[in-house]
């Protein structure tokens, strides 16, 4: 059996208060299940790989077939445990290494 391919998504967020990983993941699961149902949620394999509290950036991992659905769910997530939040997808990649490389390019100021 072939292994399922993964996608890594770099997401930035805006929030008024600091938000924990658990809270973000729970809000994303809730929206994903509400929009795409239990069957799709079963195959999404959604995890937070890293979370930078300073720059408000998270790297999510999901199944490559569910990438569009994960981005949709993230963009429609507006609340987690009563705290307001708004996500914006920045980059997607097939490997963590190339995502980090692309992130460096993203952070380089344009001359």
């Amino acid at each position, binding site marked *: 059996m072939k292994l399922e391919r993964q996608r890594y998504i770099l997401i930035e967020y805006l929030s008024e208060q600091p938000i924990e990983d658990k809270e973000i993941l729970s809000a994303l699961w809730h929206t994903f299940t509400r*929009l795409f149902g239990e069957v799709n949620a079963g195959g999404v394999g959604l995890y937070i790989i890293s979370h930078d509290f300073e720059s408000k950036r998270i790297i999510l991992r999901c199944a490559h077939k569910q990438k569009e659905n994960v981005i949709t769910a993230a963009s429609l997530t507006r609340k987690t445990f009563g705290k307001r939040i708004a996500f914006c997808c920045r980059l997607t990649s097939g490997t963590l290494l190339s995502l980090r490389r692309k992130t460096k390019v993203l952070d380089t100021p344009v001359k």
Partner: protein
Amino acid sequence: MPDFRNISATKELFSSLPFFGIRGCFAICNLDTLPILKELKPQFPTLDIYSRCILQPRDVESLKRDYKKYAGKFDIISVQSSSTEVLNFTARDPRFHILCLRSRTEWAAFNPGVGSLAFQSSAGVEFPLEFLVKSESGNSIVIRLCRKAMNIAVHAHAPILLSSFASSKLELIGGKEIAFIANTIFGIPLGIGKKITSAFPGLVLKKNPAQGSRDELAAGVRIIPDFPEEEDA
């Protein structure tokens, strides 16, 4: 829909547009809040902010009456109505830029005829996404009806617009995300989805660019310079 009573929130909303990859917006205002928008506009020189009003007429006569009040003051004039007759008139008339379809009754009034007219006169067909963000459950029937109206617009090749109707920075939806929402929830191909936030708003703006000022000439009108009368031989 910026809340102009809370100026600081509106400023925050405009300043966070680049975070979501948005370069311009159609800010909804009315005759009272238009001067506030005009004051705020120069503070954001990198953004293209267009003033926009929404007319909510009951019939064609009241639409014409309302238009007289708003003409020449706003960059974009949009019409929200659940009457097919009004939608037909709006789609055909070059003075109106956008058909705003926000609720079930308005989606039901939108038919292939209106879609075809919207395509011919490049009037935008707008579907606000606030119902997806605000309501927690019981969305399936609303999504179904909205999807049906959207499919009509796609088949008629009308320029579709999806908007967040945000009143604060935490209600905004990015351009890239709108393409994905259109694709995954409403079944619109990604190619058209990408045009929703790029080509289609430009098309709507080009429709009647002279709307913002009465001094500018409308499309198809030109002034012939004075020429000396020919003397009789």
